């Protein structure tokens, strides 16, 4: 018990130290989610109902997938303003090929995703090889790819999708078995424990500082608490949504790529300034192009999930409101606009904040005008935190 208390105390102290040193981590956004949920629950008792939270978990997936790509772009210190339009274009391509031309569904999905990758590569080539500013290239993309989407959709403008098709199931399918959600929660908790524990064992064997067992217990406990609560809530509605499972796998998988592979290390290194990375022998152009390609690919994937959610593609798909939301999500979730810091989990957490506000507002029957203002305010707050944290780091750093 004593060890536990010590671990908790050292944990809070470490968090406080990081905060003062300008490394806020995920703490502000987690507190933000809790505050938002509490406020809406007080205003409307249905907010924390299983049905609403389950819908929330599916609603974050489409834009969240796009935001994961944006995180990569922000990490290398660039911006991609075209992701909204690219997501709309991919969805339109899928809908027209599949529904109007009768192409096999899987083939249409592949083509839609590849088109996102191709568009992203083109942006990356113009930015990294030719040297055009990302802001302008992707701004042109924002307009141009939206135009192409309208052209592809043609005169009709709206294509309805089949709810029972593969694409419909992306967001419509739930694993009703209680074991699915609990199993995922258990797997996540065990994985978390094993990663910490094996790291501790190897570090101890090498005679290096390592986490005390009590701290590992606290951290694993926290993950398990969140995971099993979520599983419990989801099981009280329809079970584990397929879309949420896919999103968690993508976020977790790309987190592994970013933090534990050479490629991910290169991405972070680029965020610390291109020149040091180049002198370390990194092929800077190739990494930049690949990041924009990933951004385009994730935009296309997100576009398919968004289309699945409303089972249609229309002229309003891939709006600039979507673009604002995904960039806001990445920043609110803790990815820095200045490059070099952030994780894929910020896409999930940031999207959770934005979607919670949207969901709460619509429950309360508040019009979207107010919703825009509040989301704008939250984005502003996130940017201010990011900027102040950066300044604090500088003051603490090279004094």
């Amino acid at each position, binding site marked *: 018990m004593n060890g536990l208390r010590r671990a908790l105390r050292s944990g809070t102290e470490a968090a406080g130290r990081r905060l003062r*040193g300008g490394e806020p981590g995920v703490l502000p956004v987690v507190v933000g989610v809790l505050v938002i949920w509490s406020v809406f629950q007080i205003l409307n008792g249905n907010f924390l109902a299983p049905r609403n939270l389950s819908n929330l978990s599916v609603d974050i997936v489409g834009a969240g997938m796009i935001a994961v790509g944006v995180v990569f772009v922000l990490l290398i210190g660039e911006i991609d303003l075209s992701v909204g339009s690219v997501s709309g274009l991919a969805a339109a391509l899928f809908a027209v090929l599949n529904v109007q031309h009768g192409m096999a569904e899987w083939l249409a999905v592949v083509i839609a995703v590849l088109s996102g990758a191709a568009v992203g590569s083109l942006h990356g080539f113009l930015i990294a090889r030719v040297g055009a500013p990302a802001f302008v290239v992707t701004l042109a993309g924002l307009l141009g790819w939206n135009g192409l989407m309208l052209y592809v959709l043609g005169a009709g403008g709206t294509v309805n999708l089949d709810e029972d098709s593969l694409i419909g199931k992306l967001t419509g399918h739930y694993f009703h078995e209680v074991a699915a959600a609990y199993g995922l929660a258990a797997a996540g908790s065990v994985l978390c424990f094993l990663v910490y524990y094996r*790291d501790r064992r*190897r*570090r101890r064997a*090498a005679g*290096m500082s390592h986490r005390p067992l009590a701290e590992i217990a606290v951290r694993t406990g926290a993950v398990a608490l969140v995971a099993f609560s979520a599983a419990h809530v989801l099981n009280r509605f329809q079970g584990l949504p397929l879309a949420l499972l896919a999103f968690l796998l993508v976020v977790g998988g790309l987190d*592994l790529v970013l*933090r*534990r*592979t*050479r490629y991910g*290390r290169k991405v*972070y*290194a680029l*965020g*610390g*300034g291109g*020149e*040091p*990375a*180049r*002198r*370390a*022998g*990194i*092929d800077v152009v190739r990494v930049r192009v690949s990041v924009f390609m990933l951004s385009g690919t994730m935009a296309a994937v997100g576009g398919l999930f968004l289309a699945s959610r409303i089972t249609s593609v229309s002229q309003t798909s891939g709006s600039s409101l979507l673009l604002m939301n995904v960039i806001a999500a990445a920043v609110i979730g803790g990815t820095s606009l200045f*490059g*070099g*810091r952030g994780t894929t989990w910020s896409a999930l957490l940031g999207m959770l904040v934005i979607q919670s506000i949207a969901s709460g507002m619509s429950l309360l029957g508040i019009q979207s005008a107010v919703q825009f203002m509040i989301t704008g305010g939250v984005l502003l707050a996130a940017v201010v935190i990011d900027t102040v944290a950066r300044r604090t*780091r*500088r003051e*603490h*750093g*090279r004094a």
Partner: protein
Amino acid sequence: MPVPPLLALRGIRKRFGAVEALADVELEIRAGEIVALMGDNGAGKSTLVKVIAGVSPADEGVVRWEGRTVRVRRPHEAHALGIATVFQDLALCDNLDVVGNLFLGRELRRAGLLDEVEMERRTRDLLGSLAIHVPDLRARVATLSGGQRQTVAISRSLVGEPRLLLLDEPTAALGVQQTSRFLDLVEMLRDRGVGVLLISQNMGDIKAVADRVAVLHLGRNNGFFDVSTASQEQIISSITGVTSPPGATRRTAHARRGER
């Protein structure tokens, strides 16, 4: 047949627009030799280092590595030859930690994933063997002091067991004790057969460790000196561009070419 030098530069030329930064520069560095590169501000010392390191390749000229002509057009081509560099601006990634910077571009892997534990262990051992103290190996280098950053940059150059070390004012941010420890280290590397090119403004340091001095003046060779025989005045007058007094052991680039 004599052993060819580790690195030999011939007729290196580098222009930045209308400015000729390097003109017809020659330089030889042998294995197990410390060559000091001296010159006034703007003489082209750092430019020459960047040429050798593949960061900013020469417009003209020949680079020979152990006698064979090589292309060093990009940093990783220099790394592949075994050339490691401590740049004047250090070129560290501020947002990465000490371990991340040391192994950047040559990370260790285990089952396909980065082996952070092994990289941290080697970092600790390397810094320990250099008697360098950095309080937290997982601190981002932006949070370190100037001297600590410089020691990180120096240790990074030693990670891959280099064969040629380019040191561009490596002791600028170091204290007296750290500097003397660093010079001991450079001598130890020389004795192990590493070739070293050392840029420094400090004549005392150079007299202490260097075997030869190469002087650049306005982007051109302005003399090669043997540290054991040349006087400080001769070297300084060569740096400032004042013609050396007659009878000095100065050998111009032109005379060297005549020898062959």
